[in-house]
């Protein structure tokens, strides 16, 4: 059989009946748990935004799921497969590296991409076809800055992994808090480090006024234990981002001493959409977690884009730019200039809860106070 000639312009008829959405994320592999949360949220969000019909404005939304297993090769494969099949909307992935790759494909092939949980600042403003449904590092950092009343002249030490994630955080602190008069000193430690003791001591000797910790991964536990053992908590308040539920145990006995900034935990926002999301996800036998709202929000954005743009990519982009709506995290806005998602952030603490830990809200930081600087 021969290939059909290429000029038959697939779905160009005026009234579209179905629009396909490709959801590419980790269902297995090291980031599977994040992927699961995103998918839970996405399904709930799609239901919520289409009132359970899976249709908007008479257009049926068909979802294709792809498992990237955290492997860039598979993600590219799925992306090309979907785009090749005429999919015009992609969303998902929890890995920043993969998200950047998909964003690249979105621009090359002129389709709409709503990035999910990946926190890399670089995704914001990367190109005209890429949006984001989650928060970015800059928002974390801005929230951390809120823990000091006045930053002017204060010494902020960023204790972070020496990799893209840590470097990004350090740069964000420098840019954001440095601009507010803080003296920022990064203490970057190789991400493959195994023995933290000496660095903890170095951190203590630096006599900081505020410590911002950006650490992810398995070594988190021993890193915190070492900060405690060397007495860093006696010197300055320590701020870090609150991770997913599974990571609560990582802080060990020091959990109560840490000041957390949080992107999301179930009890943080107080609005109907959040309640609906929790109900839907729990109804499906799962639990909400750090990245569930990202999936939910992505679905909301996509439904809105389809409703307004009828599957036409440029129209959908236009529809999303500047769009404000109520997401699980409350009122959020897609910033027109660079597609940043301006949203509330939270300050929280962990309290003991039976065998484990439970986050408690200290304060909600309003979206505009922690809006990231515009990406140029």
């Amino acid at each position: 059989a021969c290939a059909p000639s290429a000029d038959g312009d697939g779905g160009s008829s005026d009234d579209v009946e179905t629009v396909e959405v490709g959801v590419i994320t980790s269902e297995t592999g090291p980031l599977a748990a994040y992927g699961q949360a995103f998918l839970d949220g996405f399904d709930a969000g799609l239901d919520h935004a289409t009132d359970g019909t899976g249709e908007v404005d008479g257009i049926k939304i068909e979802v294709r799921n792809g498992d990237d297993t955290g492997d860039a090769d598979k993600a590219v494969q799925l992306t090309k497969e979907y785009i090749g099949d005429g999919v015009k909307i992609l969303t998902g992935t929890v890995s920043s590296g993969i998200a950047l790759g998909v964003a690249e494909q979105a621009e090359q092939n002129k389709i709409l991409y709503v990035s999910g949980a990946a926190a890399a600042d670089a995704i914001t403003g990367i190109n005209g076809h890429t949006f984001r449904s989650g928060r970015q590092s800059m928002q974390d950092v801005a929230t951390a800055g809120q823990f000091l009343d006045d930053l002017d002249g204060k010494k902020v030490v960023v204790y972070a992994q020496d990799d893209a994630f840590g470097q990004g955080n350090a740069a964000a602190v420098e840019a954001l808090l440095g601009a507010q008069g803080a003296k920022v000193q990064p203490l970057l430690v190789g991400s493959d480090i195994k023995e933290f003791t000496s660095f903890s001591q170095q951190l203590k000797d630096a006599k900081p006024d505020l410590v911002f910790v950006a650490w992810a991964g398995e070594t988190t536990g021993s890193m915190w234990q070492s900060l405690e053992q060397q007495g860093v908590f006696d010197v300055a308040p320590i701020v870090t981002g609150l991770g997913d539920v599974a990571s609560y145990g990582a802080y060990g006995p020091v959990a109560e001493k840490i000041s957390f900034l949080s992107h999301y935990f179930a009890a943080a926002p107080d609005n109907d959409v959040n309640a609906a999301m929790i109900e839907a996800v729990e109804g499906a036998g799962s639990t909400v977690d750090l990245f569930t709202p990202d999936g939910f929000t992505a679905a909301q954005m996509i439904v809105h884009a389809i409703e307004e743009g009828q599957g036409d990519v440029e129209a959908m982009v236009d529809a999303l730019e500047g769009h404000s709506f109520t997401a699980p995290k409350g009122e959020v806005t897609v910033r027109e200039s660079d597609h940043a998602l301006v949203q509330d952030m939270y300050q929280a603490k962990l309290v003991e809860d039976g065998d484990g830990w439970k986050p408690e809200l200290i304060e909600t930081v309003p979206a505009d106070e922690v809006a990231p600087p515009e990406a140029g």
Partner: protein
Amino acid sequence: MRRFTPVGLGLALVVALAVLPLLSIQVPGILPGPTYTPGALQLLALCMVYASLALSYNLLLGTGGLLSFGHALYFGAGAYGLGILLERTDLSLWPAIGLTLVGAGAVAVLTGAVSLRVSGIPFAMVTLAFAQAGSVLVRRNPEGLTGGEEGLSLDTEHVPAALVGVVNTRNLYWLALAIVVVAYLVVLWIDRSRVGHVAAAARENELRVRALGLQPYTAKLVVFVAGGLIASLTGVMYLLLQSGTVPRAVGADLTITVLVMVVLGGVGSRWGAIVGGVIYTLLNQRLTLLAGSDAVDSLPAVLHVPLSEPMFILGALFILVVLFVPGGIAGTTRRLTGRDRTRSGSAVLEAADQADDKVLEPQP
């Protein structure tokens, strides 16, 4: 007369593969769609990238008996080298590729010259060390050159439009096919040439080669650098095909993956390496589908837990091949067709291992 058949067969295969994008053939379960669709072509092109990488590794292991754990370094050098050149300079694609190969070749000459001073497992470890150093460097993201953990994406500004975008996957596929052919020819050439013969002899008995008046070091270096160059050419193709590269492209894991491909296909067999590369890639890409399928989900937990992990299936399969299919696919075919001659895959492997404990006659 008899030599003609394999050549003709190979040629026919290449032609068939070349016209594939013009046809519509469905291979359910293996290809995601008909052969003209970008999804299918992307998958096939990726298979070819790994096939030529496996070919280059087979040159090292099969011909030279060099068990390298650092082969990914040269693949990564190709991918990152071109990526960085395209992003940081105004060179257009082809000169940038040329420059990348020169650079990667220089890296191969340097690291090869050092690591070939030892052999056997120590050689494996020194190469691993070099690759690890490369990997650490890439992850560290010096001067923001490599993009660290998040990888480097292809700057398409100087890339011809015909190689950009999903609609042009076809062209990338043809390019990948061309690269497999080039890799095959280069490997064939080295294998058939005198220097290749000397390398093969050195694999078996280095002292003997020296006592005949030849320098095995030179032969092995030629093989090593040729393998490295093909690997970096493959890396270049990878960057173009994937529109970017990630640190995995320099990691030890990739070398191990390639080793698995070569063993699967049959060490010492050129077409075995190609088949091994293709099959591994297909399995690796498509098993995820099987693992996530409803059929697997409905199994009891003892079966469903392992079967829903693609790497488990792949690892188990690999074990079975090593245990029950010695000589890999090529070895089995040879045995079935009764053409098993002097060189079997596991014999070549043994030579690679013995290298480190060959007892020389007494030495001060």
